[in-house]
């Protein structure tokens, strides 16, 4: 019998519908994998096995009657950023340890409405602040991949490291993730999986623990481009409970697959060639260009002149919003509260000092600083202006190109502990991904090759706002051309 946990989401859904196997069977198979792997990979912070089996049986009952939604019976992992009714939600933070929301996020509600099964909550960088999953209060997630050169544990990337590791390690069919500066696409690239961040406003932020409101977007991490199209469709919806939600139709993006790229114009931005970029990354990018050209696309060199300001802009805007969004964690109504305090101020300070990890504290401090009197104009207002310029850079090229191709990350997965001492080095991980967040554009990472150590590398496709269709169209061609079939050797 085939290993059900290695199926693509699409194959699993088809198999479930055809009654080749039951949801209970595939769910149990994943539970067994998680039980075995989690002590090593640390991808799940909460397992909801009983709930999963209940949901699976309910799905089986619907499937038996020929009913069921688009994801009926498919076991998924949920990033711990999404509030789940009755299931602990902590955003990877001690601040929220023990917090059980009495409500469900819109994104996960949509998944359950489509029949999906929840296996549990996935580890992540604390409050989604990190690029290596090392800031999680539950400890780092470990990448299922290992370099041929070393036995060192590698990062799965972040902040959706648990989601990426779980999908790559066969611990779920697909996972929800979120992306504020690259938190879907970078971990996808590091784990040989597909990750898409849709247009800002496609997926509701209601019930998603906020990091930076104007940048946060939910999206999936999956094994294939087709799976990403299926998952994303289920996750997105117009939501009156989120004022920034877009009142647009959610199309069937699987219709984009197999269309090819003949006649499409693909932009290659010269500013994405960065200092010290490994030759393997440049080579992968060149390869991607060749694949698309060979498939009939027109390659256009473009300029996005404000690219170099994107990372500094991001590290002003995101911490500023975070410093305000995270003010609610004050020890008063829920979450961690200091045991002893001499005064109200002391209670606030001690609760927050104990509850938040170092990276979160660093960003909250930066955020409070850039918003403070006397610095607001110089930092925050200026950053907003630059952000507008970055968005205009994209607006200016859309007349000439239909999508943009870049590497997903400046390197393959690195060893855990490698960059923790230097936050600036860590922040560089987002250099290719952060522009799409600042401009609100859709971006996908597709596994396209491996480095010399056999580690996966990803290519990124960025599209126009609300034009995920073209993004999927290009990603599909890259996926076919790359024929990426490498899987991590099971060592856990």
């Amino acid at each position, binding site marked *: 019998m085939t290993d059900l946990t290695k199926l693509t989401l699409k194959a699993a859904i088809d198999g479930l519908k055809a009654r080749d196997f039951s949801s209970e069977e595939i769910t149990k198979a994943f539970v067994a994998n998680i039980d075995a792997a989690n002590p090593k990979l640390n991808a799940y912070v909460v397992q909801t096995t009983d709930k999963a089996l209940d949901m699976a049986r309910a799905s089986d009952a619907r499937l038996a009657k020929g009913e069921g939604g688009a994801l009926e019976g498919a076991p998924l992992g949920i990033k711990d950023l*999404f*509030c789940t009714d009755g299931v602990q*939600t902590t*955003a990877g933070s001690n601040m*929220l340890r023990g*917090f059980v*929301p*009495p*409500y469900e*996020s819109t994104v996960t509600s949509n998944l359950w409405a489509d029949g999906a099964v929840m296996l549990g909550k996935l580890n992540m960088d604390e409050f989604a602040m990190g690029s290596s999953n090392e800031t999680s209060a539950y400890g780092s997630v470990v990448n299922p991949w290992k370099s041929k050169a070393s036995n060192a544990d590698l990062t799965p990337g972040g902040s959706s490291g648990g989601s990426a590791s779980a999908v790559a390690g066969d611990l779920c069919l697909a996972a929800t993730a979120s992306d504020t500066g690259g938190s879907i696409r970078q971990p996808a690239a590091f784990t040989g999986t597909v990750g898409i961040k849709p247009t800002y406003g496609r997926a509701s*932020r*209601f*019930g*998603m*623990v*906020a990091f*930076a*409101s*104007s940048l946060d977007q939910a999206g999936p991490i999956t094994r294939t481009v087709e799976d990403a199209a299926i998952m994303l469709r289920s996750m997105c919806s117009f939501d*009156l*409970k*989120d*004022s*920034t939600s877009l009142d647009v139709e959610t199309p069937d993006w699987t219709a984009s697959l197999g269309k090819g790229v003949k006649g499409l114009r693909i932009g290659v931005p010269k500013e994405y060639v960065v200092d010290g970029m490994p030759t393997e990354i440049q080579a992968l990018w060149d390869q991607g260009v060749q694949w698309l050209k060979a498939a009939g696309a027109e390659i256009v060199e473009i300029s996005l002149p404000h690219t170099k300001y994107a990372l500094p802009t991001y590290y002003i805007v995101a911490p*500023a*919003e975070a*410093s*305000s969004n*995270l*003010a*609610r964690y*004050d020890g*008063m*109504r*829920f979450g961690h509260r200091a045991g002893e305090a001499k005064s*109200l101020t002391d209670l*606030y300070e001690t609760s927050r000092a104990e509850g938040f990890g170092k990276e979160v504290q660093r960003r909250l401090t930066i955020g*409070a600083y850039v*918003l*403070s*009197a006397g610095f*607001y104009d110089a930092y*925050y207002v200026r950053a907003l202006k630059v952000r507008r310029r970055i968005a205009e850079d994209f607006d200016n090229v859309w007349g000439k190109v239909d999508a943009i191709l870049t590497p997903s990350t400046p390197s393959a997965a690195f060893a855990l502990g490698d960059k923790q001492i230097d936050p600036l080095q860590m922040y560089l991980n987002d250099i290719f991904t952060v522009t799409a967040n600042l401009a609100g554009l859709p971006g996908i990472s597709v596994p396209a090759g491996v480095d010399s150590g056999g580690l996966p590398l990803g290519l990124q496709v960025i599209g126009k706002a609300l034009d995920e269709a073209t993004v999927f169209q290009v990603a599909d061609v890259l996926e076919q051309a790359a024929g990426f079939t490498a899987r991590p050797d099971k060592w856990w």
Partner: protein
Amino acid sequence: MSETNTKTIKGRTGEWELVMGLEIHAQVASKAKLFSGAAVGFGAGPNEQVSLVDAGFPGMLPTLNRHCVEQAVKSGLGLKAKINLRSQFDRKNYFYPDLPTGYQISQLFFPIVGEGVVEVEAEDGSFFNVGIERLHLEQDAGKLIHDLSPTESFVDLNRAGTALMEIVSRPDIRSPEEAVAYVKKIRTILMYLGTCDGDMEKGNLRADVNVSVCRPGQYEKFKATGDFSHLGTRCEIKNVNSFRFISQAIQYEARRQIEIIEDGGKIDQETRLYDPTAGETRSMRSKEEAMDYRYFPDPDLLPLELEQAWIDDIRANLPELPDEKRRRLMSQYGLSQYDAVVLISDQAKADYFEEAAKGRDAKLVSNWVTNEVSARLTAEGKEFSENPLPAAHVAQLVELIETNVISSKIAKEVFDHVWNGEGSPAEVVEKHGLKQVTDTGAIEKAVDEIIAANPDKAAAVAEKPQAIGWFVGQVMKATGGKANPAAVNDILKAKLGL
């Protein structure tokens, strides 16, 4: 503003003048909060009107209440102010247990309503204008309760997230009386519009008063140049919630500032609280201690864009505002400005007047409404809206006077009976036999008897005509006060040969 309104205060070293600007916080009349669907209302138990959004739970997002926006626009139109087609919500960040999210959503940079002007009636019947700088929407905070336990404080979030309109005036107010008159006028306008219930006891309308003092002439220099350095340093007195306290707080604060300056000191810009029990203002925090609120645009909310057609529609459906009503009452009913101002100060009173005045002597109706009816309500601690007396009764009472069925004097007696619930004025007149005696035969008979019984007094009247008053009194006494006074006078004059 006219010069005559400027009140000067005498100090040891000369004269001083007051300059004030007010920030009025008016709770928007709305069934739901500004950014959550939670109910707003009085009388609910602690924390019964709190949604997860109000309590700042993770992942909760604000969604703007359209009705509150409409109320703000309505209020702006009532203040003759510019409605901004594009406005924006900002976060004001600070930590306090009554503020669950750690920030208040307000409008610092781009308020929904811009500049306007309000015409205010002064006590002497003159008018002065107060410029409105802005009106913006913001959330109220919750309430801390400290007196339930010696060791714990409690938080009630029912009020958290309730919509407030903050109305900021220009520094155009020059005396405690003007400040009170201004707040009264704003309150009346909002109540006419139905955008705030004006209940100051419940804190639904309260004011922050910015007070400074300067030497005569300085204010005019400020007005000419717009340069605030001509004015004194201001102190802000927070959250004053009655007309009396507003007046008292300003008077105390002005004295305090003048004494400091005259003693060679200088005023520190600070926030102060008025303590009504001690009758003084106390420092809450200095400028140095002032919090850095780190305002920035709320990324959870898109800029608010209004359509001109929607605003025009609201404007077209505005109720009659106090100023218009005052002018109309004067022209339509021939009332004096004073009477009109008294009537419009309360919409229910003006409506009551208009109902009673149909086809009647409006001046007479106005007198009854503003004097007897108002006095009774005040004595019983009732609002005009709670008036138990039907307007038709006042109308009938006035009709009885107009048609000489009763005299004005008897009318007061009739009113007493009517107020006590004995029926309509006509029924009361009937029941108590209070109808005015206009039968000249009956009056003549009484006059004859009195003259016959008092020949000496009758003779004296020829010398001293004003002594006729004594005879009038006797006749009224004999007729139980019901004789038509004009008829009595005529008959007496004839019989006494005057």
